[in-house]
Structures are given as C-alpha cells and as structure tokens.
C-alpha cells in the first residue's frame, strides 16, 4: 500500500558537487596507491642494490684472497708451464723416427741379399744406394720390393736406376736413387 516516493529536495549543484567529490576521492586513492607503489619499488631497488653491493664485496674479497694464494704458488705455475711446453715438443719427436732414419731402416731391411758399397741419405730423405748384386733376380726382387707400397710402407715415391753395370765376374753394380715421400 505504501509506495516509497523519494523526492530529492537538494539543489542540483549539490548533487554535482557530491559526484565531483566522489570522483576526486577515487582519483586521490588511486594516486596515493601509485605513489606508495613507486616508493615501494624505489625502496626495493635500493635495498636490492645494497644487498648486491655486499655480495660483490664478499666475492671481491674471495677473489683477492685466491689471487694472493695463486701468486704464492707462482713457482709451481711457472714449472708447470715450462713442463708442458717441453713435453709438447718432446712428444712430437721422441719415438718418432725422422724421414732419414725411416728410409735407412727400410733400406737396411731390403738390402740384406746384396753387398752395399755406400748409402747416402740427404736432408730431404732421398737416398742414393750403391751396391753389388750377385744376380739379376736378386736385383729385380729388390727393386720390386722397394716399389711395392704394401712392403715399403708408402714411404717411397720413386726408385730410379742411376747406373747399372755387369762386370766380368757376373756381378751387377747398381746405383739406385730413391725418392722419399
């Protein structure tokens, strides 16, 4: 039965003022929140920086201490550097025959059936062998062996006969030029 009838008797200016006031209160709250957030963020970054600086100082001290320890062990470091430097070079040479030695060892293996007069191995590893062969078959076998890659270990690139003489005694006097690879 009873209908509520609300009648705004306040002047229209008052309502507008109230709306404005409420709007400003919202803006004010938001502004304060923003300012507080910014202050919090600033404090956080400053605090983090202080913590980080402390950590950096701590690690710097550790580094300085370790550097001091390393400098006291400098002698050992120098010894190690020298040792490694020497061993790297020694490792290259020790137990690895030179080209000249390899050729000589190879020749000494094949020249057993003939009588060697002279062997000359130069700095490039090329060799000249002068020998006397009892027969042509031995000579043929020797040259075949020297030319065979499987037998010579692929160390010889060419074998050429410089001179070949057959004496009255039936012996073959041969001068071989052997080119190393």
């Amino acid at each position, binding site marked *: 039965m009873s209908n509520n009838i609300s009648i705004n008797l306040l002047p229209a200016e008052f309502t507008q003022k109230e709306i404005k006031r409420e709007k400003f209160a919202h803006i004010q709250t938001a*502004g304060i929140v923003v300012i507080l957030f910014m202050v919090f963020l600033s404090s956080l970054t400053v605090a983090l920086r202080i913590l980080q600086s402390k950590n950096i100082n701590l690690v710097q001290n550790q580094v300085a201490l370790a550097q001091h320890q390393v400098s006291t062990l400098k002698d*050992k*470091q120098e010894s*190690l550097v020298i040792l490694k430097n020497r061993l790297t070079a020694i490792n290259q040479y*020790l137990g690895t025959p030179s080209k000249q030695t390899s050729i000589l060892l190879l020749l000494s293996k094949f020249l057993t059936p003939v009588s060697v007069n*002279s062997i000359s191995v130069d700095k490039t590893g090329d060799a000249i062998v002068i020998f006397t062969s009892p027969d042509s078959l031995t000579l043929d076998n020797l040259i075949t062996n020297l030319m065979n890659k499987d037998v010579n270990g692929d160390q010889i690139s060419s074998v050429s006969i410089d001179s070949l003489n057959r004496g009255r005694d039936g012996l073959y006097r041969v001068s071989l030029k052997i080119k190393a690879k």
Partner: protein
Amino acid sequence: MKKEELLKFYNTYKIFIFPAVVSLCSLILIVFVIYPQIIKLIGNQKSLGDLTNKSEFLATKVSALESYNGEDLSKKVGLSLYSYPQDKDFGFVIGLLQNISSQSGYSIVSISLGDTSKADTSYTVKMELIGSSSLLPVLVSNIENSPRLMRVASLETSSKDTNSTNVALTVDVLYSPLPKSFGSDDSPLPSISADDEQVLTKISTAAPISGTQTIFSSSPRGKTNPFE
C-alpha cells in the same frame, strides 16, 4: 589574498592537478631512482656472475696447484730440460753422442760442430764413425730414441770391406728457449696428460741421472798410441 586564490584555483582544478602531481612524482621516482637502480642491478648482476666464476676458477686453480708436489715438479722440469734444453749444450751432447756410438758398436773418428749460428732451435753435429754396417740402423735408432732430442739430418756410408763401414753422420740437436710468458693469475693451468706422463717415464728411464746433465763417455776417443 594570494593563498585564497591559490586554494580556489586548486579546488576548481584539483581533479586535474592531483593526478598531474602524482604522475610527476612517479616520473621523478622512475627517472631518478627506479630506472638507474634497475640498470645498475642488471649490470652488477653480470659482474657478480663474472666475479663468482673468477673466484671459483681461482679456487680450483689454487687447489690444483697445491695438489702438485713441488719437489716432484722440479724434478720433472729438470728431466724435460735434460731432454729438450733451453740452450746449446755442446759438451753434453758430444759426450752423449760418444756414449751412444760406443754402445751401438761404432767408434768416432771425428766429431765437429756444424753451423751453430743459423737457427735458434737446433744446431748440427757432424760425426765420422767406423763400425759394422749391420749396426748402422741400431746407431741411428739409438740417436733418435735418445732422451736428449736429436734428429738424423743426413748420412753417408762407404764400405771398405764387409766388416767395417765409414759413416758420415749429421745430427740436428734440438733446443728451444723457455717460454717468455708463464701465464697470469687468471690464465688456466696446463694439464699434464697421461701421454705427457708416459714421455716423462720414458725420459727418466733413459736419462743417466735425472735432472742433471752429467754423462761420461766410455767410447774410444782416438788411438792409444798415435805413432803406431
């Protein structure tokens, strides 16, 4: 009067002035505090990482260096320098070559130093020897397998008879100056591998007295009676 005017102005435009002031304050905080601090934080984080890595590396280096026995290390250095010295060691090498020759069944007729001024990593020793031709591979192998680094540069043989052979041998004797830089505190330590240890064992078994360069030749140096 002015204050009243200002208050009135603020009350009229406070809806714009307040957000403007808040924005300005925030901007000032961002520009002068937050942004520089964050930039520095990021930058310092990188340097902190680098410093931590350096600290860990140095700690490892220290423990590695401490694990080496100083005496043993200097003995090894002595051995390596015996094998590959820093200077020309003419006297020692001549003695060693005489020793190797006699052990290989050869007698030295003459021995001379070649051109020693050419290279700074080797010098040549020229030898004339007499011995059995069958022992020539042994002689050459013994020279190259000697703990003192030597390489046969060239050789010439001439046989007078089946028993004796004249050998003219040129040997390159290797040496090398020590490295100029031994590394800084931050430089990594060279590691001694198993191969290196094997080389050291090889040298130490062949070296007459480890770390020293004393060797005495027992080979004949010439005729006992030169007028014979």
